[in-house]
């Protein structure tokens, strides 16, 4: 790579994209602020690609990629990375599965070695597969201890009738008990191909050299067949849906969810700003975070009024239309109906009245601050670059802040009217059993 393209990379916000002959997309960003580097590999597969009967298969496959290849047998991969001072993990979500290693910069090559190896060579040993079945069921049972998790799971299954977003990422327990090695291995071979993957590196390296090294490790992997297209579309919701979950825990929860547009839809950005106006800008790090939100609308209307002890809205970028959600933990001696009415009063307020210029400014300033905080970490930056490519493309990410700044009060009022409605809602109540 010559001086000219280097210059172009800088002009391009420092992000450089290329594609290997086998279809592997590569996204690189130099960052010399600290002597560290982070490497991520994203596969465009998640619970979105799962059929009934094998729900949770993407997540299980992710676990199996930690269970050994011939080159790095069970236990060897994680030891090699840990020994080299690396942090690592794998994550499965609805639209994608990803693996990362963050290292002292001079050791980043090990990440290329292990990730190129397990893209094609994971063994899926029969005994290891069985042992992992109970680990995953244990992971699921840990979540089942939380009625908040159970409520969200039920609501998601009610909000979607045909689209696979109705399934929990970890899968239904019956499927975890019945699926087997053959299905897991086939899923792996179908989706773990260079042409269904994106490699991302951010950190202290020379990107020209990094491209060469990625070519060296990944270039020899054979291109796979085109992955099956996920064709299911959720029909329009015409009627309100209600979930009432009862259990032993005494704390009450409520949730409301509305179908909402995908990341590439023009209404995505107005709804993102609305989410900030309702409950603060959300963190861009790997593990949540975000602005405190006590000056925002939902806190003032619900927590200050002592109806709830916490409240938030949520909206995230996805490939297919997903949900705009509201959730709250009830204060003592308050009914679910009172809280539901109070949330609806706030929804109607944004539908009827334009938000103020100050609220718009605050949302943008909070977003810029969250961006700056997350930019300190190469791990967070690589995470964002990769998942942006999964759910949209790099233009979407590069135009992200500009698109948020362009949102007007009229846009917000319009999207609130378009996407929120009584017949479009899925409402969930968790209440203690009498």
């Amino acid at each position: 790579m010559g001086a000219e393209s280097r210059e172009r990379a800088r002009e391009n916000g420092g992000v450089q994209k290329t594609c290997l002959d086998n279809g592997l997309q590569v996204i690189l960003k130099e960052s010399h602020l600290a002597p560290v580097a982070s490497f991520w590999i994203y596969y465009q597969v998640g619970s979105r690609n799962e059929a009934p009967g094998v729900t949770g298969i993407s997540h299980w496959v992710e676990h199996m990629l930690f269970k050994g290849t011939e080159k790095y047998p069970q236990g060897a991969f994680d030891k090699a990375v840990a020994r080299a001072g690396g942090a690592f993990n794998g994550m499965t979500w609805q639209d994608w599965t990803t693996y990362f290693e963050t290292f002292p910069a001079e050791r980043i090559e090990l990440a290329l070695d292990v990730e190129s190896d397990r893209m094609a060579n994971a063994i899926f040993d029969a005994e290891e597969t069985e042992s992992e079945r109970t680990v995953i069921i244990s992971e699921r049972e840990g979540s089942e201890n939380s009625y908040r998790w159970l409520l969200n799971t039920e609501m998601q299954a009610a909000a979607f009738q045909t689209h696979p977003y109705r399934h929990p990422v970890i899968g239904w327990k019956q499927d975890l008990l019945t699926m087997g090695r053959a299905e897991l291995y086939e899923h792996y071979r179908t989706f773990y191909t260079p042409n269904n993957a994106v490699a991302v590196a951010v950190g202290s390296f020379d990107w020209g050299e990094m491209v060469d090294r990625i070519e060296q490790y990944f270039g020899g992997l054979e291109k796979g067949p085109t992955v099956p297209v996920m064709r299911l579309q959720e029909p329009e919701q015409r009627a309100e849906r209600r979930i009432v979950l009862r259990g032993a825990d005494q704390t009450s929860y409520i949730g409301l969810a509305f179908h909402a547009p995908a990341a590439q839809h023009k209404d995505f950005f107005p709804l993102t700003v609305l989410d900030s106006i309702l409950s603060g800008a959300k963190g861009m790090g790997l593990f949540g975070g975000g602005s405190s939100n006590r000056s925002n609308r939902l806190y003032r209307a619900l927590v200050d009024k002592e109806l709830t002890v916490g409240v938030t809205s949520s909206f995230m970028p996805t490939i297919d239309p997903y949900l705009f959600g509201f959730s709250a933990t009830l204060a003592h001696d308050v009914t679910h109906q009172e809280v539901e009415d109070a949330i609806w009063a706030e929804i109607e307020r944004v539908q009827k009245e334009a938000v103020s210029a100050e609220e718009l400014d605050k949302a943008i300033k909070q977003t810029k601050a969250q961006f700056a905080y997350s930019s300190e970490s190469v791990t967070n930056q690589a995470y964002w670059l990769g998942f942006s490519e999964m759910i949209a493309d790099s233009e979407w990410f590069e135009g992200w802040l500009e698109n948020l700044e362009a949102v007007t009060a009229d846009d917000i009022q319009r999207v609130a009217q378009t996407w929120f409605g009584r017949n479009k809602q899925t409402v969930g109540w968790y209440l203690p059993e009498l």
Partner: protein
Amino acid sequence: MNRIPSLHVPGPSVIARAAQSGRPTVGPETIHRVQTTNGITVLVRPNPSAPVVMLEGCLRAGSVSEPPGLTGLASFTASLLSRGSANYDFDRYNEAVESVGASISVGGGSHTTNFGSESLVEDFPLIVEILADILQRPTFPAEHIERVRGQWLVRLQEREQSTRSVSYRRFNEMIYGDHPYALPTSGYIETIREISRDDAVSFHRDHYHPNQAIIVVSGDVDPEGAVALLESHFGGWRSGAEPPPPADTIPPVTGANGIQRKSFPMPGKVQSDVVIGCLAIARNHPDYHAVQVANNILGQFGMMGRLGENVRERQGLAYYSYSALDADIGVGPWVAFAGVNPQNVDQAVDSILNEFERLGNEPVSDEELSDSIANMTGTLPLRLETNDGVASILLNMEWYGLGLDYLQTYQARINAITQEDVQRVASQYLRTDSYTLVTAGPDANGN
């Protein structure tokens, strides 16, 4: 198109050169440390990487100073500070902090009240001004006390519904007996109900003083400017009586003798949380690094060390199985954790105890020792990547008096740990004839 806020990248600098030599750059050459006349130690670590500033600090106001029957008062008082102060009532505070995308936090611990902020560099002066006001001049508005109490009681109820929280809280109560460390810093439903406005006012008056306070700043600031800013807002804070050394504020930890095992049934739950451990050492004990290396081997390294290998990878009993050392001013426990199906609790407990025993009975292999040492020293640059990470490590170094060169000598101290050290501390502290075991979850009999 470059709409992403650009980072201003420092030129070839001390930071880059020192990093190439493999020596951590956070040390006496890069940390500015001064003491204010009223007793605050200020540490500033300039870092021009990103246009942000992180601040972390602590005051000598911890739960060990709570009056009897008012468990949770230190934390409760801390949470009231942002509810109103001389210059920032609740609404003004929220608008000021949130309209610039910043955040301020204050929370109570055992020996200290900790505070912190995160802001863009342009807003740092404002955030320091607000932080100084809420720490020094809170007004404790009565209506907010009741509002915070209501929220707190719901959060405590949620804590009592979590198998993880219940198991660790019960573990601490059992292992510490009548020592103040037995009590949760967030209090109990009964004690939080008892706290009055006067209690919070008195706790603030008696314990919120600049003496022995620490403030750490890491971010895009120049040290002199940051110190001057802190001086202008904290310099006029009147000192109180000099607090005794932290170790003198608690009785010696004697701890439980023999084996204690207890399970807490929680209806409606599916999985059990297991906590099993022994009292080990305080943070300033000479065995600290040996225990850390041993703990890395036992329940941290790779997929969570030997415990992960045994309980998760080999037997498939749990999604998580790991160990941690919780060393404080006083003696803290060395603990293993696992989340398992109720049918498998006994098997998981036996496996964990076997690993405790094996670590004390047999020397670890050369490879295990060198792997864990490489991991602990090798991950240091990752922990020092962000201002957040640096600020919390510096606060820790100052609080425990570890010295400004702590990070630079860390590698040598970890490298010095031997197989004999690991075996000795394991046999000394991981006692299979004297441990505390708590299980919280569904009744194994299916009730």
